[in-house]
C-alpha cells in the first residue's frame, strides 16, 4: 500500500491509470496480447529474415570476390593464351590471377576408379584450402584430391593414384566446399599445370580481398582483351550475390510488412479498448473534471493507460521473441553469431518501440476525446 501511496504523490495519473487497467483485467490483458503478438511478429520476422540473409551470405562465402574469365566460344575462341593471361596480370591490381587448364580424366586407386575433372593449376593455395596435407605455392608435382574424390577412392595424403596412365602421389586433400563457388573442386583433382595437355587456359580466376577490387579488375581485363574483338567472357559472381542480396532485402521488407499489418491490427484493438473505456467512464471522467482535475491531466492519464497496455505487450513480445530465437538456435543448425548479429537486436528494439508508439498513437484519440468533453455534458443523463 505504501508503494501505491508513493506513486500517488509522484504520478497521480499513472496511479489512477494503473487502477483503471486492473479494473477490467481480462480486457487489458487481451489488448496487451494484441500488441504482444504484433511485437513478436515484427521482431521475429525481422530476425528470421536477417538470419536467412546472413545464413545465405555465409553459405555463398566469398564468391562475391571472385571473377571467372573464360574464352568467348561464340566468337570461336576456345582458350586463353599465355600472353592474354599476362596482359590480365599486367592490368589488374590487388587481385590474385589464377589461370586454370581443364580436362577430364579417369582416376584410379586399386580397384576403384572414377571420371573426374582435372584442373591444371599453378597456385592452388590462392583458391583452395587443404583438409589433409599442405597446398604448395607452386604446384610442380603430385595430385591434390577433391574431398569427394578422396572419399570415393578412400585415398589420403601419401597414397598413390593413377590418372590416365600416369602415377601421382597424393600430396593433399581439399576441404569439402560448403559454400557455393565458381570452381567447386569436391569432384575434381588438381594437377600441376604442365600435367595437362595444351598451351592455353580454359579459365582464369581473379580473386581479391574486396568485392570492389575484383570488380575493378574485371573491368580492366575486359577493356584490355575485348578492345577490338569480344575475346573473353567475364563472369562476375558479385552480380549473383547482388541479386541474392536484393532478394533477401525484398524478403525482409515483405516480412516486416506482414509484421506491420499485425501491429496496425493491434493498434486498432487498443483504440477499441480505449474508446470503450472512455465511453464506460464518461461520467467518472466528468466527475474528475468537476472536482478539479484539469484537461491535460485527464489526457495524460488516458495516454498512460494506453502506454501501459503497450508496455505490457511490448515487454511480453520482446521476451517471447527472444525465446523464439533461442528455440531457433536449439532446433536448427543456425549459428550463434548469426543470432547475435546487431541487426537482430535492432529489430527487437524497433518492434518494442513500435509497439509502444502504436499504443500511444491509438490511445491519443480516445484520450483527447475523454479529456475535452465538457463535464456538464458527461454528467447529464
Amino acid at each position, binding site marked *: 500500500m505504501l508503494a501505491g501511496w508513493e506513486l500517488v504523490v509522484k504520478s497521480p495519473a499513472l*496511479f*489512477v491509470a494503473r487502477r483503471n487497467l486492473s*479494473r477490467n483485467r481480462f480486457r487489458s490483458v487481451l489488448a496487451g496480447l494484441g500488441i504482444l503478438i504484433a511485437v513478436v511478429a515484427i521482431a521475429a520476422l525481422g530476425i528470421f529474415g536477417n538470419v536467412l540473409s546472413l545464413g545465405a551470405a555465409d553459405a555463398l562465402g566469398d564468391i562475391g570476390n571472385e571473377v571467372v574469365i573464360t574464352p568467348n566460344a561464340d566468337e570461336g575462341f576456345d582458350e586463353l593464351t599465355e600472353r592474354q593471361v599476362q596482359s590480365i596480370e599486367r592490368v589488374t591490381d590487388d587481385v590474385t590471377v589464377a589461370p586454370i587448364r581443364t580436362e577430364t580424366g579417369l582416376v584410379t586407386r586399386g580397384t576403384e576408379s572414377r571420371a573426374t575433372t582435372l584442373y591444371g593449376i599453378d597456385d592452388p593455395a590462392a583458391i583452395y584450402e587443404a583438409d589433409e596435407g599442405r597446398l604448395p605455392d607452386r604446384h610442380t608435382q603430385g595430385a591434390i584430391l577433391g574431398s569427394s574424390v578422396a572419399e570415393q577412392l578412400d585415398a589420403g595424403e601419401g597414397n598413390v593414384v593413377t590418372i590416365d596412365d600416369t602415377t601421382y602421389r597424393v600430396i593433399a586433400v581439399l576441404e569439402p566446399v560448403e559454400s557455393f563457388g565458381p570452381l567447386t573442386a569436391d569432384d575434381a583433382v588438381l594437377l600441376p599445370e604442365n600435367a595437362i595437355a595444351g598451351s592455353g587456359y580454359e579459365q582464369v580466376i581473379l580473386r581479391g580481398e574486396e568485392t570492389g577490387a575484383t570488380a575493378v579488375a574485371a573491368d580492366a581485363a575486359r577493356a584490355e582483351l575485348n578492345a577490338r574483338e569480344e575475346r573473353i567472357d567475364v563472369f562476375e559472381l558479385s552480380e549473383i550475390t547482388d541479386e541474392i542480396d536484393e532478394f533477401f532485402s525484398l524478403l525482409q521488407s515483405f516480412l516486416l510488412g506482414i509484421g506491420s499489418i499485425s501491429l496496425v491490427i493491434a493498434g486498432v484493438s487498443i483504440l477499441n479498448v480505449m474508446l470503450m473505456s472512455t465511453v464506460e467512464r464518461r461520467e467518472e471522467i466528468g466527475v474528475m*473534471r468537476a*472536482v478539479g*482535475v484539469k484537461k491535460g491531466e485527464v489526457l495524460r492519464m488516458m495516454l498512460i493507460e494506453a502506454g501501459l497496455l503497450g508496455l505490457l505487450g511490448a515487454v511480453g513480445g520482446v521476451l517471447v521473441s527472444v525465446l523464439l530465437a533461442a528455440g531457433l538456435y536449439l532446433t536448427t543448425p543456425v549459428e550463434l553469431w548469426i543470432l547475435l548479429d546487431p541487426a537482430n537486436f535492432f529489430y527487437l528494439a524497433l518492434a518494442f518501440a513500435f509497439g509502444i508508439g502504436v499504443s500511444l498513437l491509438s490511445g491519443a484519440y480516445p484520450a483527447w476525446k475523454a479529456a475535452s468533453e465538457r463535464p456538464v455534458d458527461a454528467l447529464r443523463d
Partner: protein
Amino acid sequence: MDATERATAADDPPASDPALELDTVRKVYDSGAETVVALDDVDLRVERGEFVTIMGPSGSGKSTMLNVLGLLDEPTSGTVRIDGRLTGDLSDDRRTTMRKELLGFVFQDFYLLPTLTAVENVTLPTIFGDGTPRRGRAIDLLERVGLGGRLDHTPTELSGGQQQRVAIARALINEPRILLADEPTGNLDRDTSEQVLDELSGITEQGVSVIAVTHDELVTEYTDRTVELFDGRIR
C-alpha cells in the same frame, strides 16, 4: 488536522462578500430550430454558512443553475461571483482550478471512482496538480462522517448512504467555500437521507455554504431558505 483548519473559509476574504452571487444570469440554449431560455435573469445571493435548497419541477432550470454555479457551464449573460471573484471569461484550466479550490460537488449517483478505495476517492481532488495529496485530511474527514473504519473499502463494499458520505468528504477535501449538491438524497432511504442531511447542515456551521437542488421535501426541513425555480425564473 485540527479544528482551525476545518473552520475553512470564514477567515481570509472580507466578511461582507457573500459566498455566491448571481446577477441577472441568463442562460439560453440555441439548438437551431428552437431557443430555450433555461435561466431568465436570475439573481441569487447565498451567504456564508447558509444552507439553500433550490426546488422546482423538471425543466425549470435547476440543473442549469447548478451547472452555472458550479462553473461547469457558462451563462449567456450576467455575472457569477464566487467568494467575491468574478468567474466570467476564464480559460478551462482556470475554471477547473477555481472549482478545485472553491467548490465541492455531491451528486445523486455519488460518482465515486470504483477502482479507488474510500480514502483514495476522498484524496482524489488533491492528487493532481500542485500541492501535496492530503491523505491525512481525507482520513480525518472520513472519520468525521463516521467512516473511519472503512477507509480501505471500495465503493461496491459500501452502502448508498456510506458512499454519499464518502462523496461529501471528497467534496470537502479542498476546504471549499460552497458545496453544491445535486439531489443528494435522491438514491437514499429516509433514515440514510437524514444522516446525510445532518452531515450537510453540520458543514454549514463551519462557514461552508451548501446549495442543494432537489425534489425531496425532506431536504427543506434542514435548510435555511428554499428558492423555487419555475420556467427559469425565481419565484
